[in-house]
Structure formats: structure tokens, C-alpha cells
């Protein structure tokens, strides 16, 4: 086990904790940058999708993992971003401007939804967000002049400075750049006073309030940032799917997004990324698994949501810290190799926490 011995303030500000971190992230950057050279278009598309999910994951992680507010309605923000972007593009707005427009609109709406959240806590918020999801879905269906209703809406291909990049490399780099920016933004946000206020608010609202954290302000901020990032990802998502229909942005999708952060690992950026990889890869895994299962089980229509549910339940029961938590445990096991203690990560015994 290594303990970084900090000798100056610069080290505290450093994004990488040690030189080995620097090496591994450098290697990862190299692999990701060179990917279009040695990976075919299909997998490039899949990786871009994971990046998009990753941005949503980071957005949701800020809200749920750091500020402790549950949202079962993030597909709505994704949809708002996607529709705004597509509509702006169809009106001839340049790519970057419409991207900013989509982000801005979902940020505003996010702040609006965050507002009732100030008065209610915990479960009420979960209910408010899923009600919001249904309302937004309704608007997508009914506002036919704008959204095309049930029949859907074709998205114009992305074009930047007169260069069009529909498939493969170009779009991949846009997504890569976006997720890197999102991560940097979030890392910096989390060590700013705002980020620390969010974490304080998650751990104990009352204590945070006593220390002068203004709940109203920070909850709304968390909602707005989270919705903004999700809306931004939604704009990219619109290009990824190419054709928008209201039945994509349902509560099922919201729950899938939430599954992403829970399975990935609550309260860490790594968790959001791991979760995105996991959820992005899951349909493929299920498709592969189907080949090995007997037909009577594999051809069942309801199997996919069932697997989602099962994974959710198993994660919460057996590894509440998600994939990232498990990864930390494995890492710890090897770094202290013969001296690993079973109790190193065990939780304190806990009793029912009362909200009354």
C-alpha cells in the first residue's frame, strides 16, 4: 500500500495522485486516441455509445452519488437534450450552437425540477422525478408539430465547420473529447466549495445546514448541472440513434441509467465509467448468453429487463459499492498481499436510520 507523501500544495491540486497513475492514464489515452486506426466501424460506434452513456453516468453520479438525490427521471433530460438538438439542427443552427442550446435548455429545466426537490426529500424526490419523466414523454408524443409525435423525427448528421462526420472516426473523437471534458469539469467541481457542499449535503442534510450550506441553492445546482450534462449527452445520443421516437425516453431507460451508476459504484467517477461500460456491453453479453441457454429460457420476451432487475438486486445486496468498490478490494488484496484482512472493508453494523 502506498501513501502519497505530499510536500507542496501543487500536489494537492494535481489530477493524478502518483506517477504510476500518470503512466496508466497516459496509456489509456494513447489506446483511445489510436482506436479508429485499428477498430472497425461497428465497435467504434459501440465505444462512442459507451462514452455517451459515460457522460450521462457522470451527470447522474453528481446528483445521486455525490449530492445524494435520487432521480428516476434522467431519460427525460436525455430526451430533452436530444429533441432540442435535433430540432435546432433541423432549423439550420450550427452544430456547436445547437449543442450549447440543448445543454442550456436541459440545465434550465433541471433547475426547475430541482425546485420542488427543495421542499421534499428522499423518496418524494424519486416520485417527483418519475412523474416528471411521464410528463415529458407525454409532451414528446403530443407536441407533434415539433417532435413528430409517435412517428418520430430524423436527426440531421453532425457537421462541424463544414465537415460532415456521420460515422466512425469523426463522431468518435467528438464523443471522446466530450467525455474527457465532462470528467475534468466534474473533478474540478468536486474539489470546489460547491462539490464539497454537495457531499456534505449527502452525508447529513442537517449537519450541512448547521455548517451554513444552503440546501436550496446546492440541491438546485446539483440538479441543474446533472441535467445539463445529461442533456449534452442527449444531443450526442440523438446522433447515435439517428431517429428520435418518444418511446426511447421512457422510465425503463431512466431506471437503466440509474442501474448504471449503482452497478458501477456510487460516489466515484470511476464508478460512472465502469457502469457505462457495463450497461453498454450488456445487450451484447445477453445476446451471447442466449446462444448458450436452452431455447425455452433464452427466447423469453421478458428476459432482458429481468436480468437488469436481478443485477440491481444482487449488486445492492452483495456489493453496495459496485464494480469500482470490488476493484478497490481486489487492488487492496494484492497491494498488501500476504497481510490481507477480511475486515478491511467491512461496514460498521448499522441499524434502521429514521427519517422521522
Amino acid at each position, binding site marked *: 500500500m502506498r501513501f502519497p507523501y505530499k510536500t507542496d500544495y501543487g500536489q494537492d491540486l494535481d489530477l493524478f495522485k502518483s506517477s504510476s497513475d500518470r503512466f496508466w492514464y497516459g496509456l489509456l489515452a494513447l489506446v483511445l486516441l489510436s482506436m479508429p486506426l485499428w477498430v472497425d466501424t461497428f465497435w467504434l460506434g459501440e465505444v462512442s455509445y459507451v462514452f455517451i452513456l459515460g457522460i450521462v453516468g457522470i451527470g447522474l453520479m453528481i446528483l445521486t452519488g455525490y449530492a445524494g438525490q435520487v432521480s428516476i427521471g434522467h431519460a427525460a433530460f436525455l430526451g430533452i437534450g436530444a429533441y432540442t438538438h435535433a430540432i435546432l439542427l433541423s432549423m439550420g443552427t450550427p452544430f456547436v450552437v445547437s449543442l450549447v442550446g440543448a445543454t442550456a435548455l436541459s440545465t434550465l429545466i433541471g433547475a426547475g425540477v430541482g425546485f*420542488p426537490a427543495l421542499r421534499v426529500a428522499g423518496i418524494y424526490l424519486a416520485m417527483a422525478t418519475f412523474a416528471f419523466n411521464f410528463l415529458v414523454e407525454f409532451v414528446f408524443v403530443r407536441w407533434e408539430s415539433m417532435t413528430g409525435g409517435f412517428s418520430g423525427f430524423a436527426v440531421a448528421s453532425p457537421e462541424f465547420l463544414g465537415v460532415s462526420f456521420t460515422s466512425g472516426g469523426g463522431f468518435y473523437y467528438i464523443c471522446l473529447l466530450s467525455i474527457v471534458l465532462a470528467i475534468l469539469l466534474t473533478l474540478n467541481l468536486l474539489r470546489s466549495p460547491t462539490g464539497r457542499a454537495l457531499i456534505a449535503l449527502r452525508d447529513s442534510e442537517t449537519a450541512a445546514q448547521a455548517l451554513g450550506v444552503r440546501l436550496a441553492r446546492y440541491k438546485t445546482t446539483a440538479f441543474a448541472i446533472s441535467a445539463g450534462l445529461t442533456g449534452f449527452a442527449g444531443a450526442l445520443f440523438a446522433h447515435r440513434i439517428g431517429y428520435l421516437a418518444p418511446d426511447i425516453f421512457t422510465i425503463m431507460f431512466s431506471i437503466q441509467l440509474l442501474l448504471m451508476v449503482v452497478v458501477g459504484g456510487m460516489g466515484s467517477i470511476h464508478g460512472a465509467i465502469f457502469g457505462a461500460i457495463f450497461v453498454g456491453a450488456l445487450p451484447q453479453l445477453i445476446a451471447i448468453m442466449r446462444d448458450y441457454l436452452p431455447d425455452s429460457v433464452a427466447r423469453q420476451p421478458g428476459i432482458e429487463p429481468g436480468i437488469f432487475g436481478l443485477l440491481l438486486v444482487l449488486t445492492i445486496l452483495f456489493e453496495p459499492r459496485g464494480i469500482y468498490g470490488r476493484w478497490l478490494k481486489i487492488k487492496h488484496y494484492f497491494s498488501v498481499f500476504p497481510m490481507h484482512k477480511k475486515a478491511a472493508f467491512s461496514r460498521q453494523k448499522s*441499524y434502521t436510520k429514521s427519517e422521522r
Partner: protein
Amino acid sequence: MTELSQLIVYGLATGCIYSLIALGFVLIYKATEMVNFAQGDLLMLGAFVAVTFILTLGLSYWLAFILAVIVMAAFSYGLDAVVLRRVIGQPQFSVVMLTIGLGFIFRAGATMIWGTEPYNFPAPFSSGVSVVGGVVISHVAISIVVGTVVLCSILWAFFRFSKLGVAMQAASQNQLAAYYMGVPVKRIFSLIWAISGGVAAVAGILIAPLTLVDNTMSMLGLKAFAAAVLGGFGSIPGALVGGILIGMIEQVSGAYFIDGSKDIAAYATLLLVLLLRPQGLFGAVGRKKV
């Protein structure tokens, strides 16, 4: 006027179902502070179990009714004892996610066992109608209202007069004190889950002749949240009144507002209540203690 009374009668019937589901939430919430997002799925399972008893085993309606309620009560008891008890003490978020996950599993399981085709639910009074002052009232609607009233009276008497019911009240008011007085709190909680599962089964069987039995029934559970919140989460009379109000709001908005608003009226009401009066009609949201 006749149209409005017709809508109100129909709204009263669906509202009673919302009331029963909301009652299930509230019972569990009052006792364990868990919010059960799978209540609608329990309702769906109850209806499926009953339909199996009737169609496959050829039992009579009343026998199937009682057996399905017992099966669902036992199932919910097991659910609490095996799964939900493990997350006590974890943040509320975990419980929400856990019950959502369980709901998904139940729905997938129901699809695997019973398929995607909806079942017609045969009840002895399925086709009967009465006309009162120009308003057509189906006997199914009457059965729902009567069933709700009977069930609520039984539950009221149970909580008021039986030793077990009083122990349940004690456990939900103060776990520790109840424990010191010799109340087996864990078993009581599982029993409350059992009651809640039984209530869900009753609701499922009552509404089944009206809707057909398939896995979209679980969506009723989400709408019932609106009922529970409107009445003030944690208040039993509130849940009952809230459910009936939501049922009526839904019917009336479906007829008099824009097309399709029936589907979202409950959710819109939910948001409005949270915005304007988060404590609901009957509830009291206290300050959170540290």
C-alpha cells in the same frame, strides 16, 4: 350531468384500487420506512395467481380469491424475511433501487410463466349492470367499492382490537420501545409485508375483471404513488381518500381535457401536490432529526 356522474362512478371504482395499493405502501412505510416500488407488481402477481387457480385448476371465484390472497401474503412475508431485511440500515436509496429491481424481476418472471397474452378474468358478476337514475353502474364497479370497504373495515378492526394489530402499531411508532416491551419487531415487520402483499392481491383480483390480467397491471402501482402522496405519505385515511380523488381526477380529466391526459393526470397531480403541499392532505412532514 349524467356523463359526469357516470365518470364519477367509474372514477370511484378505479380510485378504490389506487386506495388499496396506496394502503399497501403506507402500511410498509409507516412500519419500516421502506418505500415499496414493487407494490404494483405484487398486485399483478396476485391477479395472475388467482387467474391460474380459476382457469387452470378450475376452482371457484371465491376459493381462488382466498387462496391467492394467502399465497401472496406468504410470498411477501418471505420477500421481507429473505431479501428486504438485509438492507435495513442502508440508505433509503438502496431500498428504492432494491424494490425497483424486484419489480423488474417479478414482471419478467410473470412474462416467463404466464406469457404476454392478456387473460380474461372470469368473475361471477362480470357482465351484470344496474341502472340508477340514468347512470349505468357495472356490478364489477360495485364489487370493487364493496370489497374495499369490507377490507378496510377488517383492517381497521384488526389494528384497533387485536393484540397483533396493536403490536404492529407499536412497532411502527417506536421500534426500540416495542422491542423492549416484548414485541418481536422483525417478525412483525414481515407480517406487515404479508398484510401488504395480501392487500395488493385483493386489489389485483378486484380490478382484474375490469382490465384483463397482464403485466401492464403493475403500472397501477406507479399511479398509486400519486394517491399516497396526495393523502400524505404515512397516513392511512389519507391513502384511502387520495386514491379515490386520483381515480376521479383521472376520469374527469380524460373526458374534459386534451386527448390522452387521462394517462398523465395522476403524475401531474403528484407533481403539483409535491410543489404546493408536500405534506399532502392529511400528513404531517416533520423536521428530519439527526
